[in-house]
């Protein structure tokens, strides 16, 4: 699969100052850790800066001109980000990261216990089940464990097949299931979940579907309305945007009924010492002073990605993935953890090297300027499932080149030589 329109990567790279630095005594940086956090183009940093230099003020709280302008910038950011994922502006809640977004849903559900009639559909208790998968990132796992602890519900999970897919042959979704939560794309395996099938099964039993879209929204066209999920979460920093901002998407009628999570300023309707009522969404879920400049930055990132086109982004990253899978598979003693072909797959390539711990592989690569991630990548149970304590992982973004993939493969070979296993 070749990109339909090849990207002008050199031109793109010129927008990312950090990619031009050197590391470890003069080696050009080869950044293959965008799955952890992506780099930011100057357009994003400039957008934040110009917001700060011209319009910074409290949003939704002031009547002076600066505050009007800041509010406009913030709400325009929301609208652009919403459009990017097939949502309406009022379906987009800003959080600090995807982790908060997922916690928001989990806590909203346990708060339903004391929130009256309207929230009854969210109440969980003993006998109810939450279904996830064994490949989840800790951020889409621990919040559900804790929700179960708070409510007495039971956590269940789909196992993972040897080639890194959710094992749908093991049915886990039953009449008891109230929530089905899973990653759109695994941050370790790169495999893309069968969303349609899982949504279908969840709908059959009336369970809510929560999609962890952290690794899909940055890398391919995603339309939450078309996917027909109930909630979805993603993070700004993985998609060329700022840290400190994440997004929760929710279907309108669900957000309207979900009880608040964080409470305080800006999310209220009427406050008395005795009792408080709450604003409609999305404000209900945005307590306190919001991340205004970060929203502006994220909108600039969305504009940047849209300017390239998410189809082109995806095609480019898939081509790099193909090269990496090919190059690494040719090295004896290297084993890919995850699908070895490009079917339903994105650009995270995790692997183990026989006889060398991932940390040591990473160190040799780092010494050559190649930055990858090593460890369990916040998916510890998944690593246990594959019988490994740690993997090395390369992840790609729009600014990576085929030459960088070559540097990765050569670095792994060098590690094998250094440790005498090749």
């Amino acid at each position, binding site marked *: 699969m070749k990109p339909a329109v090849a990207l002008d990567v050199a031109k793109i790279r010129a927008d990312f100052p950090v990619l031009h630095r050197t590391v470890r005594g003069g080696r050009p940086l080869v950044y293959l850790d965008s799955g952890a956090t992506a780099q930011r183009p100057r357009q994003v940093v400039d957008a934040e800066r110009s917001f700060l230099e011209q319009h910074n003020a409290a949003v939704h709280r002031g009547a002076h001109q600066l505050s009007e302008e800041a509010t406009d910038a913030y709400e325009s950011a929301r609208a652009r980000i919403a459009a990017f994922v097939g949502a309406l502006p009022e379906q987009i809640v800003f959080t600090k990261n995807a982790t908060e977004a997922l916690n928001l849903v989990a806590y909203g559900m346990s708060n339903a216990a004391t929130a009256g009639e309207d929230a009854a559909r969210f109440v969980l208790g003993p006998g109810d089940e939450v279904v996830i998968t064994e490949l989840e990132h800790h951020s889409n796992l621990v919040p559900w464990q804790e929700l179960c602890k708070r409510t007495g519900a039971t956590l269940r999970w789909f196992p993972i097949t040897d080639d890194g897919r959710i094992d749908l042959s093991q049915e886990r979704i039953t009449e008891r299931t109230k929530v089905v939560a899973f990653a759109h794309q695994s941050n370790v395996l790169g495999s893309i979940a069968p969303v349609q099938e899982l949504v279908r099964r969840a709908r059959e039993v009336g369970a809510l579907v929560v999609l962890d879209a952290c690794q899909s929204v940055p890398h391919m066209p995603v339309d939450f309305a078309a996917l027909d999920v109930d909630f979805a979460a993603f993070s700004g920093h993985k998609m060329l945007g700022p840290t400190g901002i994440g997004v929760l998407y929710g279907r309108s009628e669900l957000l309207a009924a979900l009880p608040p999570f964080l409470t305080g300023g800006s999310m209220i309707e009427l406050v008395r010492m005795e009792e408080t009522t709450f604003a409609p969404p999305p404000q209900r879920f945005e307590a306190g002073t919001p991340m205004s400049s970060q929203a502006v930055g994220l909108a600039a990132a969305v504009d940047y990605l849209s300017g390239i086109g998410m189809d082109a982004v995806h095609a480019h990253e898939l081509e790099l993935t193909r090269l990496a899978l090919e190059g690494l598979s040719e090295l004896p003693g290297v084993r890919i953890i995850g699908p070895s072909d490009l079917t339903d797959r994105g650009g995270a390539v995790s692997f183990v090297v026989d006889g060398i*711990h991932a*940390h040591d592989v990473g*160190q040799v690569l780092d*010494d050559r300027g190649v930055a990858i991630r090593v460890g*369990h990548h916040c998916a510890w149970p998944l690593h246990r499932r594959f019988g490994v*304590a*740690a993997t090395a992982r390369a992840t790609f973004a729009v600014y990576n080149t085929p030459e960088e993939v070559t540097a990765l493969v050569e670095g792994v070979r060098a590690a094998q030589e250094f*440790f005498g296993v090749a």
Partner: protein
Amino acid sequence: MQLEQMYQEIILDHYRNPHGSGLKEPYDAESFQINPTCGDEITLRVRLDGETVTDVSHETLGCSISQASASVLTDLVVGRSVGEAMKVLQAFQEMTQSRGTVEPDEDVLGDGVAFAGVAKYPARVKCALLSWMAFKDAISRSQEGAA
């Protein structure tokens, strides 16, 4: 290539032929430690005779640095008093956490000086310290047991 700074021959030797590897019976105290950032694990056992560390054994699931460090630890503490071993531990910890500012003392640290290069890689310091933390914990457990 700066790699050799970290992976000195001594470290690679210990990594390939780790001393004390394989859990032994009997033992007086055991500690299980993990490195939450990378998932590395160690189970380490100590055997004491009064104040003297008479044996150390361990099972380490980890990188070359953590394995070599457990091996060096075994060499450095077996046969010493608990007090002396704790001094070595302290010197080792100071050196690895110093970012290269502390000059290691070979008289105290023996093969441990080879880990001076690790001090420059903060993300690996925890690897070098994993077995030492397990040792410290095992000793304090053995003392709880005794008290």
